[in-house]
């Protein structure tokens, strides 16, 4: 199995600059999403930020390649951005605008793009997991050599569907990886209160998967673990990876996390994968403060522009309400105009 073309040697410093850039982009994007919410301009009532989890998204996704597919949970902005999404179109979707990835009909929790292999973010905990088993099957059928990856939170570790899916992936030797982003909390419940089980990856071992747990503090460690699992998966040996990190803020934007102590938050936020990578770059002399500051400023400007783009974008036309319920060619029960007239009480 040869390494994918876009992979630099794991751990190299050139690589770390790019990984840092990727993580900073995710963080800044999420900060802008949060600002949008605070300013009352975001359309959605439920926004889940992935701040603190950037290494999971960027470290893993940096080794995926064209044709690979994936699903995410509700906290999936960072994963999609790392996979090459246009942040403007993401922000437009979060704002419910037509220029968004789902024409404004999905929002933050359902962002998807078949072209980039994104089979959908999901608002059902565990709901996106079995689709990657199917995508793995389709990939093997076509001999594409593509892998399919399910990203989900620690909460989904208690959903039965994960185990049914891992079992099938192992049984059929599918090119599939299950990635659990363990940010220690599912809403207000700490992982220790959700399971008596030991290391999460041991469950996957029991089903015959390659499985590891990795600390998400150093993005290079995540990337190395991902590299091992991805190589095996491309050869039809499915895998599981638990990435340990911390959810820096509340579950959704309204949640102020009163169930956590200040100390818990301080310790958790001290394990900051973005600042850790930055320090590693400075310590190794690979980059200086001025270079990194300039990079950060460029990213800030890029992400500021996403808000302006989303604010200026158009609302979806009313007729799109009825579009895409079925495949094209399916007879419409009634003309769209009639249906709009009815719901606007103009009938």
């Amino acid at each position: 199995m040869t390494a994918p073309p876009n992979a630099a040697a794991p751990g190299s410093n050139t690589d770390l600059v790019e990984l840092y850039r990727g993580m900073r982009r995710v963080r800044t994007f999420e900060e802008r999403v949060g600002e949008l919410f605070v300013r009352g301009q975001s359309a959605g009532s439920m926004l889940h930020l992935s701040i603190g989890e950037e290494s999971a998204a960027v470290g893993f996704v940096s080794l995926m390649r064209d044709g690979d597919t994936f699903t995410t949970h509700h906290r999936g902005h960072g994963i999609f951005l790392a996979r090459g999404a246009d942040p403007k179109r993401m922000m437009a979707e979060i704002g419910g605008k037509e220029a968004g990835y789902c024409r404004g009909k999905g929002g933050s929790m359902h962002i998807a793009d078949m072209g980039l292999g994104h089979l959908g973010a999901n608002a059902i905990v565990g709901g996106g997991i079995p689709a990657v088993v199917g995508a793995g099957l389709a990939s093997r059928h076509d001999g594409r050599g593509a892998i399919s990856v399910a990203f989900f939170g620690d909460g989904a570790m208690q959903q039965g569907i994960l185990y049914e899916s891992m079992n099938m992936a192992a049984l059929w030797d599918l090119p599939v990886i299950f990635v659990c982003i363990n940010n220690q909390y599912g809403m207000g419940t700490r992982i220790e209160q959700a399971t008596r089980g030991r290391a999460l990856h041991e469950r996957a071992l029991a089903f015959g998967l390659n499985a590891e747990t990795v600390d998400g503090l150093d993005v290079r460690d995540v990337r190395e673990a991902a590299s091992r699992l991805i190589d095996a998966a491309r050869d039809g040996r499915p895998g599981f990876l638990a990435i340990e990190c911390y959810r820096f803020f509340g579950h959704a934007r309204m949640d102020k996390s009163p169930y956590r102590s200040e100390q818990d938050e301080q310790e958790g936020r001290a394990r900051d994968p973005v600042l850790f990578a930055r320090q590693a770059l400075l310590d190794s002399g690979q980059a200086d403060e001025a270079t990194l500051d300039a990079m950060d400023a460029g990213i800030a400007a890029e992400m500021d522009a996403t808000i302006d783009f989303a604010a200026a974008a158009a609302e979806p036309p009313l007729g799109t309400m009825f579009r895409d319920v079925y495949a094209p060619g399916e007879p419409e029960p009634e003309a769209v105009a009639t249906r709009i007239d009815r719901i606007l009480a103009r009938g």
Partner: protein
Amino acid sequence: MPKKSYRQAINEAIRQEMARDERVIIMGEDISGGMGAPGEQDAWGGPMGVTKGIMPDFSRDRVLDTPITESAFIGCAAGAAATGLRPVAELMFVDFMGVCFDQIFNQAAKFKYMFGGKAVTPLTIRTMYGAGFRAASQHSQCLYPLFTHIPGLKVALPSNPYEAKGLLTQAIRDDDPVIVFEHKAMYDDEGEVPDEAYTIPFGEANVTREGDDVTIVAFGRMVNFANEAADNLEKAGISCTVVDPRTTSPLDRDTILETTEETGRLVVVDEAHPRCNMASDIVGLVSQEMFGALKAAPQMVTAPHCPVPFSPALEDIYVPGVARIEAAVRQAMGKGH
């Protein structure tokens, strides 16, 4: 009578039933919240704070935060009900029923019948439904028609705080599995709610307006919209009866038939999708039982046959509103109205 919110009314019903009967327990995801986390305990009370404060007043033995594992905890609640407890399980959003549907419609709903009447399953499931919350397709559905379809399940749709307390109390005391549908846009609605415990019997509709021209049958949140439409129409000289059936199963057929016979015109308002929903069910009932008494074709006001869209511009017109109900009433009245 004291004023209370829909949220408080539900909280009070649960507390009073827990105090009255120690077999009543509650369970769900973060229904207390923060269990074992290094900060405030009882930090959530469910995502809308409905059950907040119950855990400290009772105990962790009777207020159970569950993992995110709907099949298992709903099935567990059904099993506990069949073996002597009276569980009130919170299934956060009705959309998540997809995860545990088997446990509800193949298991809990059928224990009694399949076992030749030997099982009793006093299970209550509280769940949130409805659009208008900017929460997209997987957090906005109604779905109560699906559960109404299943023999063995009872389905209640409280339309205001008074109804919420009385119907939930009845659900907890009821010996069958009951699903109580709470509209997520109504938790802050206020209304008069007695302090003492009371029940509202299932299958007895509430007539909220009496009129001569048109009977409007509406469900859950739509009852309030129907009342508003009726008040507006009154000023325009059209007088409406508004019927809140309160429960879709059992259904108070008599009140629906009698009030429709009096007016000869029927409008049904249902926030669910139009196919196989409560509106089509009631129109079918009325058409079969008293076709001859109808002066006009019955009208159905429902959401359209598409998932709930995320975009506010679309969602705002998705949910049936007062203007649509008024238009349907005028349509039933015919030319000149």
